[in-house]
């Protein structure tokens, strides 16, 4: 089994560790890999995590990717958008998100690229990023590690705050982990700089440096651990039986 492990599966396994020590909070994985990773975290690292069906209900078992029969969902509670806001303002949440840009301060952008008055590329809008980042822990998944995502200077429109404004968050701001197609990182380098924790198989320190628009700390050049047999079975048979995960890197 191990020689056919995909990059998506390596990323899911690495990302699932983000929620390990969170206790009983709401885990929100937005997008394909973060969502499977949050589900894997609940099934392995932290069974106390709460999670939604992707819409309005809290369910006891993570919802698998793709079409499913929702009548089998084990509903345990309610999580309308209004309640999500109430929950996150209280800090009892850890989201994993995919911003379009991120900078050396950990500031993130999902609003607009280019001049703000008439953007070159209008994106979603800041959504809940200002509130999320100032109120609770977040992690980040970037499928295309490049100087376009890890930008030189600051992001074009700061949607989620960064370490340079950490003092404004009443102690709640933290970017726990950053998982990309090249490796695993956090912001615990000198003065909260981005630091490399491990490289995915086949990626090099040069790849990381060339594709990051700012200085990063290299604390380790170890290889990202492979998913365990248990994790692989859960990913392949329970969380994503249709293999939708492998579309993310065209595997």
């Amino acid at each position, binding site marked *: 089994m191990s020689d056919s492990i995909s990059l998506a599966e390596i990323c899911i396994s690495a990302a699932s560790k983000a929620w390990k020590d969170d206790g009983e909070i709401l885990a929100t994985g937005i997008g394909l890999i973060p969502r499977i990773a949050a589900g894997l975290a609940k099934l392995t690292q932290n069974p106390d995590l709460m999670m939604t069906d992707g819409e309005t209900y809290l369910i006891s078992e993570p919802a698998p990717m793709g079409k499913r029969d929702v009548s089998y969902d084990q509903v345990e509670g309610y999580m*309308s958008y209004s309640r999500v806001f109430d929950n996150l303002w209280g800090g009892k949440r850890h989201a994993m998100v995919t911003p379009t840009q991120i900078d050396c301060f950990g500031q993130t952008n999902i609003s607009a690229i280019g001049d703000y008055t008439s953007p070159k590329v209008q994106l979603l*809008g800041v*959504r809940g990023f200002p509130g999320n980042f100032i109120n609770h822990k977040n992690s980040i998944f970037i499928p295309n590690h490049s100087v376009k995502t890890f930008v030189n200077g600051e992001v074009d429109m700061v949607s989620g705050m960064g370490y340079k404004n950490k003092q404004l968050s009443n102690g709640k701001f933290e970017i726990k982990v950053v998982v990309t197609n090249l490796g695993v990182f956090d912001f615990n380098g000198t003065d909260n700089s981005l630091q490399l924790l491990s490289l995915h198989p086949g990626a090099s320190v040069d790849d990381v440096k060339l594709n990051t628009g700012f200085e990063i700390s290299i604390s380790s050049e170890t290889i990202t651990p492979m998913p365990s047999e248990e994790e692989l079975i859960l990913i392949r048979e329970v969380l994503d039986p249709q293999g939708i995960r492998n579309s993310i890197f065209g595997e």
Partner: protein
Amino acid sequence: MDKILTHDAVINNLSSGMTIGVGGWGARRKPMSLIRAICQSDLKDLTLVSYGGPDVGLLCAHKKVKKLIFGFVSLDMIPLEAHFRVSRQNNEIDVMELDEGMVQWGLRAAAMDLPFLPTRVGLGTDVLTHNPELKFVTSPYSDEENLVAMPALNLDVALLHVNKSDEKGNTQIVGPDPFFDELFARAATKTFISSEELVSTQELGGKEGAIFNRFERSLVTGVVHSVFGAHPTSCAPNYGFDMKHLKEYSDAAKSFKEYSSKYMNKTHEEYIDSVGGSEAIKNIPLPQF
């Protein structure tokens, strides 16, 4: 008491330059038949407050929007709203871009008749850079924390789509998430409802039904009976998103003429026929997330 109105009568209650709040969320439970009626009217220079979807995009495409107060504009399964993007990228509209929760806070302040509500949200972001009108407030208690004073988002009018209403404006939102429709109603001077079903008060279901009554009838100025009035957005549990239509609508951002001649400038009944008729919409499955 009879609050039943036609689409045209609602339009006659609106005027250019008004601030209009639109209920729903993204491509979910938007009062689209009322939005189309605005598109077909002489109204202009509107300020919109919305958890935006095709309501914002369609009004942008018809050049009705002066200013948009928003946290996002999205068609859910199609993440980016093409018509809104064109308006933004061509600098055709003014924007007040806020965190989703700040929008809620602004509506709540208006609902409570307060000038502002304090929050940390917005600090450390360019939401403050691009909205210099946002001011701060210092906590009067010993922490002396400096917070954003999110101003009240007072609305002239709120437009909401609901599952059921009686003629007095006793409404029910039966779908699992009522979104922030209640706050839109409370923040507005007048609220106009479009409703899938128009029923007698007895048919609202008594105590069990009353759980779904999200705000009281005194907030409701008028009710339009609009079957499939949320199309092409979803109206759980009645029908889902019309993905095929949303895709055609989205693609029309390149050239709006064909879409417009097929679907605009029609009565609501003509519109429903043009998008495939009642039976087709009734059979659109609910979305899965």
